[in-house]
């Protein structure tokens, strides 16, 4: 026996629990510091948490974002207003169209163009925003389900996300970083058969959502890991600046689309789902319901979208027609100045915000009258939500960090700018 034990220690470098003395079987009495991330599969994007754990229980945590910091704000100060669009694509790279719209709205606010865009532009923006919101929620739910072991739900949702990406690619020309919106309009009109494609796509997704709901809603493992985990009270959610699905899961009845209506949202009918307990399971339910509301909005848009121009008729932000550019010197110069100097925005400051995938996404812009922003600031919901994570994971087990993080849906690009 003794020989066997020594052999096991020598060969395998370990002991069985029953071979340990009584004192060795106890977990270590001291607190332990563990690094979770930055490149951990469950840390969406890259974020590092320095956890102080008592056994498996988290007693203290220090979250370090910033591994994906690409100086969005500094780069924007050196780019023309139009050149900022590709940067905004890379903020929340799961729903880039909403970022595009948010930036365009901030610039239009300073130019006094809010509410003066052609109806078709506003409808196109709502359509692409809602499609982006769907890709965001599909990714969030799918990835979180996968981290809890439900791989089928992940594959189903990513497959449906791909249908939406294919359609967005058809509309904009790029699968992920669309850069489709422009100041005062959009880059090009919707393709001829977008209506039928979207109907087909939504019909399929309705079925997929039903299938995934059957798989997850009353799944014992899923519910045990989600219900009661990472709960937040309504008052905490408000004071911590939470917005979007996370705040709504806590019962905060706030949706930018309804409470500070922009674009053509007042003409559309949709409900704002609310949770009661504010835990991870409620966040999941709110997101699923929002998916259904997105489909509802999209179907209304399909019926209501009018024909018309796709760019506001304002020489400050629309390019001259191509025939004029090639045939008259004035239009040629205007085209050149527009591209090289950028859209001239009158001096001033303004904050415009939209309902992003994770809540109120805003851009605070200070303009000095030139074609480049003097200052561009992005109010990123992910950053604000991540700041609450330390409080949410407190007193939970290490394994609970995964669903809490999944449902906060921190997007590295948006959080770290």
């Amino acid at each position, binding site marked *: 026996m003794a020989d066997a034990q020594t052999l096991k220690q020598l060969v395998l470098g370990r002991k069985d629990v029953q071979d340990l003395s009584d004192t060795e079987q106890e977990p270590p009495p001291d607190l332990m510091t563990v690094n979770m991330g930055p490149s951990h599969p469950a840390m969406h994007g890259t974020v590092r948490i320095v956890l102080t754990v008592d056994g498996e229980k988290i007693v203290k945590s220090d979250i370090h974002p910033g591994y994906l910091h690409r100086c969005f704000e*500094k780069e924007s100060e050196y780019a023309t207003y139009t050149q900022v669009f590709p940067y905004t694509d890379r903020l929340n790279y799961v729903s880039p169209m909403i970022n595009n719209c948010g930036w365009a709205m901030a610039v239009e606010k300073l130019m006094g163009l*809010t509410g003066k865009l052609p109806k078709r532009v506003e409808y196109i923006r709502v359509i692409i925003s809602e499609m982006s919101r769907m890709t965001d929620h599909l990714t969030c739910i799918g990835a979180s389900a996968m981290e809890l072991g439900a791989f089928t739900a992940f594959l189903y949702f990513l497959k449906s996300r791909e249908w939406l990406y294919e359609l967005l690619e058809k509309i904009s020309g790029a699968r992920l970083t669309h850069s489709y919106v422009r100041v005062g309009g959009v880059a090009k009109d919707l393709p001829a058969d977008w209506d039928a494609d979207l109907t087909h796509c939504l019909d399929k997704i309705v079925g997929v959502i039903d299938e995934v709901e059957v798989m997850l809603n009353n799944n014992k493992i899923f519910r045990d890991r989600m219900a009661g985990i990472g709960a937040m009270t309504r008052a905490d959610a408000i004071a911590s600046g939470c917005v979007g699905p996370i705040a709504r899961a806590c019962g905060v009845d706030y949706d930018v689309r309804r409470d500070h209506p922009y674009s053509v949202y007042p003409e559309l009918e949709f409900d704002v789902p609310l949770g009661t307990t504010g835990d991870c399971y409620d966040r999941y339910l709110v997101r699923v319901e929002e998916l259904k509301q997105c489909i509802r909005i999209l179907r209304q848009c399909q019926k209501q979208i009018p024909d018309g121009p796709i760019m506001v008729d304002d020489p400050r932000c629309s390019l001259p027609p191509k025939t004029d550019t090639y045939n008259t010197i004035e239009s040629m110069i205007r085209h050149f100045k527009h591209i090289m100097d950028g859209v001239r925005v009158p001096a001033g400051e303004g*904050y415009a915000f939209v309902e992003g995938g994770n809540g109120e996404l805003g851009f605070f812009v200070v303009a*000095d*009258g030139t074609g480049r922003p003097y*200052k561009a600031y992005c*109010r990123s919901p992910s950053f604000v939500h991540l*700041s609450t994570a330390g409080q949410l994971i407190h007193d939970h087990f290490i394994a609970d960090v995964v669903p809490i993080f999944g449902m906060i849906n921190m997007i590295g690009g948006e959080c770290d700018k």
Partner: protein
Amino acid sequence: MSKKVLDALTAKFPSAIVRTATANGDEIAWIKRDDLLAVAKWLRDDPAMAFDAPVFCTCIDWLDWKPQHNNRPPPEWGSAWNETKPRFTVCYQLRSVAHKHRLRLEIELPENDPRCASLAELWPAFNWQERETFDMYGIKFENHPDLRRIYLYEEFVGYPLRKDYPKEKRQPLVRRDDLPINPIKAEHK
């Protein structure tokens, strides 16, 4: 509706408000630095104001400010920045869930003494946002519970979003214990 907020604020704190304005649909109140905490506390606790939700905190560096097509620039001191003008403006955007109104507080800070009261005690969301503003602009928030850099590493020298920080400057973080301390860092201290 929000104009009422500005009027009530001016009536309540006549000496603390430098001026108020409505620019591009946003309500803005410029507050004296020393009165910020009292004003903010009242804004949060008064039932008619009820600014319970924080939105964002950031800062504007006016160093390169030379506005063109200048009709109404945001700072009242107008045209171009010079040494006699306050260099930084810290902005706090607040929102009320109940009344659905919004307000931006702006605090002007001199170049040689960029300190400002921290509002992290009143709204926990400002904890990280003020850390970000400190990280990027070097604003010292007084009584902040944990004022550290947040995006950048602690060895980083300078504040990258200030206008005098060159865009092309690189500061790779390479730990080499055998080399002497970075001369830039020594000089900065």
